């Protein structure tokens, strides 16, 4: 039997070309490792009967009740109460950095695809917003397989472009969020922390639950360079010629300050903050999502 769990490894996943297949493999691999099913409400369990009103889908009529009592009742199922979830994926230039074959954007794609697949599987509606300094693409939340395919297509076509401006796009995004639901932000968050936090605040203000997946490359976290290096800045930053060893401590400190500030900001807003390095297995993100989903 094929060990699906290995598809949780981004490096393995990278070898598979189709994103839909990747997403399925991730989820299957993830679920194969769990002892009980995580699906909730996705079962076709009967919940209650209600009287038929014109417009109801005739497929849901309980013909057995009609045969016994000649009255039209419609069977009601739990899945109708499912969640509306938006994935906010950062496609700025900085996301294109990767010390290995899987860069941050690629990793984020897998993550987004896997989450979308998982959501659609359990009848949750999933929408997608691609952004950099502005919203690049918005797909409204739906919970159908064709919709999933659309999302996966958009994900695979997403290209890194400009600098991130999370605050700017948060205004745009909130207009789409009519219902209460879940917003999952997938980004390296390389922007000013005030702008990021204020953007997140606005989304929270709309009554949305938020999970932030902070995607970082392993090299960004460890800064393991030894040789003299010319660092060419992405997102319009200038280049820097330096001995990385002289800068490592200070760089790591600056980065840690930044990250901890974001984390504290998230904590204050009761936002789930999950820092993920691109060398980590994808199940970290899925577990974080499912834990959150359970609480909703």
């Amino acid at each position, binding site marked *: 039997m094929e060990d699906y769990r290995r598809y949780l490894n981004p490096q393995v996943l990278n070898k598979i070309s189709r994103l839909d297949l990747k997403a399925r493999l991730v989820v299957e691999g993830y679920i194969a490792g769990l002892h009980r099913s995580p699906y909730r409400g996705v079962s076709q369990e009967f919940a209650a009967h209600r009287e038929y009103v014109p417009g109801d889908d005739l497929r849901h009529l309980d013909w057995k009740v009609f045969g016994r009592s000649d009255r039209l009742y419609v069977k009601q199922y739990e899945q109708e109460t499912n969640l509306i979830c938006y994935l906010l994926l950062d496609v700025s230039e900085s996301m294109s950095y990767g010390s290995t074959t899987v860069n941050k954007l690629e990793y984020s794609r897998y993550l987004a695809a896997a989450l979308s697949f998982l959501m659609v599987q359990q009848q949750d509606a999933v929408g997608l917003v691609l952004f950099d300094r502005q919203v690049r693409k918005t797909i409204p939340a739906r919970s159908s397989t064709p919709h999933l395919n659309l999302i996966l297509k958009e994900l695979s076509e997403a290209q890194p472009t400009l600098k991130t401006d999370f605050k700017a796009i948060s205004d745009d995004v909130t207009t789409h969020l009519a219902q209460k639901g879940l917003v999952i932000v997938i980004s390296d968050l*390389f922007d000013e922390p005030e702008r990021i936090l204020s953007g997140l605040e606005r989304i929270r203000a709309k009554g949305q639950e938020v999970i932030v997946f902070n995607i970082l490359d392993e090299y960004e976290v460890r800064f393991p360079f030894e040789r003299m290096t*010319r*660092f060419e800045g*992405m997102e319009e930053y200038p280049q820097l010629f*330096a001995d990385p*060893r*002289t*800068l490592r401590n200070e760089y790591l400190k600056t980065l840690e300050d930044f990250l901890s500030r974001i984390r504290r900001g998230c904590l204050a807003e009761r936002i789930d903050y999950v820092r993920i390095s691109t060398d980590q297995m994808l199940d970290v993100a899925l577990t974080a999502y499912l834990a959150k989903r359970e609480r909703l």
Partner: protein
Amino acid sequence: MSFVSPAYLWLLLAGALPVIIHLLNRQRYQTVRWAAMEFLLAASHKNRRRIQMENLLLLLLRVAIVLGLAFTFARPYLKKPVLNALTAPDTHLVIAIDNSYSMGYRDGSATIFEQVKDVARKLIDTLRVDRGDRLTLMTLSEYPETLINDVSLHITQAKKRVDELALTDYATNIMKTLALADDIASKSTASRTVIYLVTDNQKTGYKHAEAATATAKSELKIIEVGSAGRANHQVTRIYPLNQSGLILTGQSVAFQVESTNYGNKDIVTAVNFIADGIKQGGSSVNIGAGRTVSLAFNHSFTEPGPHWVRAEIEKDNLVIDDSRIYALDIKDSIKTLIINGEPSAEPFEDEVVFLRYALSPQPETPNSNISPYALNIINGQEFISTEQLPLNNTDVMIIANLEFIPPGKLRQIEEWLNKGGGLLIFLGDKVDRTAYNDLFAKGLLPAELVEVAGNNTDTVRFDRIDFTHPALTFFGSVKEKLRSLLIQKYYSVKSAEGSRVLMSYGDTANSPAVIEKPVGKGRPSAAPKPPSYAVPKLRSGEGQELWNGEGWLILVTTSADAEWNKMPAKPSYVMLIDQLCRYLASSSSLVARDLLPAQTITLPAGEAGNFLMATPKSGTVALQAPNYKDTADVGLYTLERLTADRMTKEKLSYFGVNPEPAEGDLRRIAPDELRKILNRPFELVNANAGLTDDALASGGQIPPLSHLWKYLIYLVLISLVLELVLAQRFGRFA
């Protein structure tokens, strides 16, 4: 600074390696497109200055490590103990420079004295003014002298003083010098005192070694200069073979000349004999290695007065001891004044008739070759009536059976005695015992007269004869001759303390017959021995008075004629009188005129007039003090006196100042022997055995504190650890 292995200094070029590596590293860089640029820029901006400083510090450290290693391999050390300034205590150097005459030995083109000065200059160079070092500069010889003993050190002055230092004609006396140096060192307040003896380290320089056993706190370093097997030959002594020391004109005197070869090989050399500047004879002589050979040269002087003779040997590398001078006085006659206490017209009744014939068989022809005596006989009456006794022209005075000496005459005689006269007193029946005992009380008689002993019938002979006395040594080989003399009457006497009994009578009491007493300080009881290899006691002291102008007095307790004895009947009588008179007359010629440098010449007491001294090197100087002390130079000294009209000069005496013979023995002392003599820790360094500048600093080896490589190793290790720690800390551990 010097290096043990200077070839390794090429490694210093490796000091450029860290810089080159740094530059190469800058060339070989990678390019990374970087997302988290704002954090990197912030870090770079914040630390740019610090990073530059850290980079520079690390670079310097790495360069220092490489340079330090290169230096370590080259093993540097300091010529001067510079490090001592930080770590070592202030030092007081006491440098004793041997300037004895043996240092005048020519070793190649220069004397070894130049080598000694060279060593001294190098020693002075090791001193540090800033450390508060002090210097005592002194000479090493029989008469050590402190040249510089300064709290404030002036190196230039000290070296100038060394340059100016001249050789002396003195012998070496290391123990005496060391005692002085120890004394100076013990008074020093410096934390460390080092005594340097820079010398040729002769064995003979360690005389009187038993005198100095110092428990000194100062370090002692002996630096030997000159090659080890230096040969030398010298005239060791020259002296007349003459028992009494009295030499008369026309008398042939044999001068004994001893020459010593201190070398390891036999030599054939010429020995010349010079009298008053004219060569009289010469002889070729073969002297075995380490041997002394004696040659005799006969010479007779025709003129009375002061004379000198010199023996010369062929010149070698040490010239000063190749000749010696002996100065002496020659008399044409022994001027004898006889006071006749009992004159008589009868030839055999006269008191002094036998004396006269004994001394001068032909009184009518004085100064004939038969007798050296020139007699002047005065009767007792005349003696009393004469105002002034003719003592100035008298060598010996004989008083025979004189009743008493009037006080005026006594004063004249006493004065004359003090100038070196010799007085012979015979007793007899005329003698006033009380008057003579007054003389005894005044110290002018060797014995107190008690009573007349004996009778005309019985005779006694001389007994207990002191043949060691110079006046009687003549009889040593014919002892019975003296014992053949018969005596009937004599004064029994009680000899005073300090008197010497030459002969006694063979009576029961052994009454003294001939008694001698020095007047004033007297003179040596024996003729001065010629200077011997071992320095005689007479000469060892500084300022010894060698002019012993004081006289002697001999009392014969029987009569001069045949009245109390039958002596004149025997030929021995003539010999006895002659020997006694010669002995007494020799007082002025016995003056030791063979001196060692720096011994004092005492001028004859009571001589009126202005004295001049013609010296071998300093010209003629006028003398004021009764002593002449400037006899540092070897050579001939001439004592002269200006006559009353101050127009002419009269030669009084010659003095020969000769080098101490022992100093000519250049053989070194063996280290074992030295250890025994010094009886204290010391370091022996040979300047010829590759003595480097650095060896001088502590003697024989590079001073430990000047070895820098150990410190460099520490420095490199510390730098390495520091580099590691800093690189780690700066995040550049690679």
